[in-house]
């Protein structure tokens, strides 16, 4: 609780150390009842880096980020975020960690009984425990302005289009100024123009708030725009890693199949 009182989302972005590892994963394994979903996942995410995870549906991409944020407990392996082992954290430590990690769900996961304003106020009042209404209003308007949806402030999620919902979801996640962002298929279900806008917005928000990101996507345009580094996942393991240009020339058939349509 002590740390919760200190974190108001106002703190300066930590000193930018280019090679500082914010997420370290080694030998991560996760089984469900009848399926080995993660077989042996290892990677490091550096501060300020955008890492894209590509892979077929059911290859274990979402499970990986759900383990990172503590929604699922891995069966084996090391998983440290900001140098602390996630699996060894108690409820309070996990809560503190989650305040530093933003998670954008595929659906946006907006609270549908609340207006856009109330959706954005929710993490400020419940997580950061802010009391000053002027400060809250200022933050809400600032982040909505950043995603270009200031006009929609009093609308209900049901009145928003798919793209607008994703933008509000992104704004709600960004309002607490997380140090790490996890995106679960941020452009799925959107038309190509809106997908591109969301991808550019992700890049813009990453630069503005200096976040490190893991982006799970199938959208190659999103990959091209946002990725500093790409890892390709298949059947619970990483099978390739590199930049967009490097992977375009990959000899691996599965890897190449992702790039075929865009080359």
């Amino acid at each position, binding site marked *: 609780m002590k740390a919760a009182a200190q974190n108001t989302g106002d703190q300066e972005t930590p000193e930018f150390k280019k090679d500082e590892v914010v997420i370290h994963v080694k030998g991560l394994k996760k089984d469900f009842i009848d399926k080995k979903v993660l077989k042996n996942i290892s990677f490091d995410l550096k501060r300020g880096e955008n890492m894209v995870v590509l892979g077929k549906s059911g290859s274990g991409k979402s499970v990986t980020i759900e383990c990172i944020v503590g929604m699922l407990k891995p069966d084996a392996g090391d998983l440290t975020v900001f140098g602390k082992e996630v699996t060894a954290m108690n409820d309070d430590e996990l809560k503190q960690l*989650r305040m530093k990690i933003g998670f954008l*769900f595929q*659906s946006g996961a907006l609270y549908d009984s609340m207006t856009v304003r109330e959706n954005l106020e929710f993490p400020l009042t419940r*997580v950061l425990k802010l009391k000053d209404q002027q400060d809250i209003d200022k933050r809400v308007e600032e982040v909505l302005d950043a995603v270009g949806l200031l006009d929609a402030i009093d609308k209900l999620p049901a009145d928003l289009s798919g793209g607008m919902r994703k933008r509000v979801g992104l704004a709600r996640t960004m309002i607490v100024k997380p140090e790490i962002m996890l995106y679960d298929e941020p452009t799925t279900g959107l038309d190509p123009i809106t997908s591109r806008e969301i991808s550019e917005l992700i890049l813009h928000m990453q630069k503005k708030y200096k976040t490190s990101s893991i982006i799970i996507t199938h959208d190659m345009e999103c990959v091209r725009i946002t990725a500093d580094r790409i890892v390709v996942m298949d059947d619970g393991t990483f099978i390739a890693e590199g930049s967009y240009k490097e992977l375009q020339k990959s000899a691996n058939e599965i890897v190449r199949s992702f790039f075929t349509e865009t080359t």
Partner: protein
Amino acid sequence: MAEQAITGWRKWAEGIGEQGVFFARFFRNIFTGSFEWSEFVRQCYEIGYRSVMLVGITSFIMGLVLIVQLRPSLVELGAESMLPKTLAVSLVREIGPVITAIICAGKIASSIGAELGSMKVTEQIDAMEVSGANPLQYLVVTRILATSFMVPLLAIMGDVIGLFGGYLALNITDDISFPLYFNKCIASLDFSDFLPAVVKTVFFGFAIGFVGCYKGYHSNKGTESVGIAANSAVVTASLWIFVIDAIAVQITSLLFYK
């Protein structure tokens, strides 16, 4: 066959264990963290105020029907003057609380189950959890406390309206003044009629809120699960109401009607 039976028993035992954990988490969350007053008040409005009409109409009809049904038997026994007393005692002790609770189980437990179930399906509960907020405190504690608080109030209101219904039915065949009728009703009621009835409605309300929240919060992913959550919330809450009623009647008769 045996394997299926074992799996069935294991699932049942797991369900009981999960409910125990959910119950413990609910209680822990009442006393830790900041209480969501505004959400509690909103839930009281949604649960209580929006059920007033339904409970009112049902109770009115119940009072009316009870008088119509009781009258021939009491007339036969020459105890027509006992009608207000019989109605008041049966309504306040048993019929009012149980009928109100059953109506609330149908209306409130299903709506809580469906609402939380759809929030689960659309990842809203997960979103709250991964943001570092406490969904149990915001969604569960407020709803269970609101049902525990509002169902007794609805039951008391239902009792009063039921007595009005009885007065109307009595005036169709007999001529009795309103003050006399109500004096007879009130005089026939004792502290031991009123208090246990109110106390058991608190438990009815708790069961309705708890079952609705548990079913919704633990629904599977998929739209079908929302319907299942709502449906099983009504069935389970109704069953619990009768179980609690049976226990309450035994305790009350031991304490008050020796």
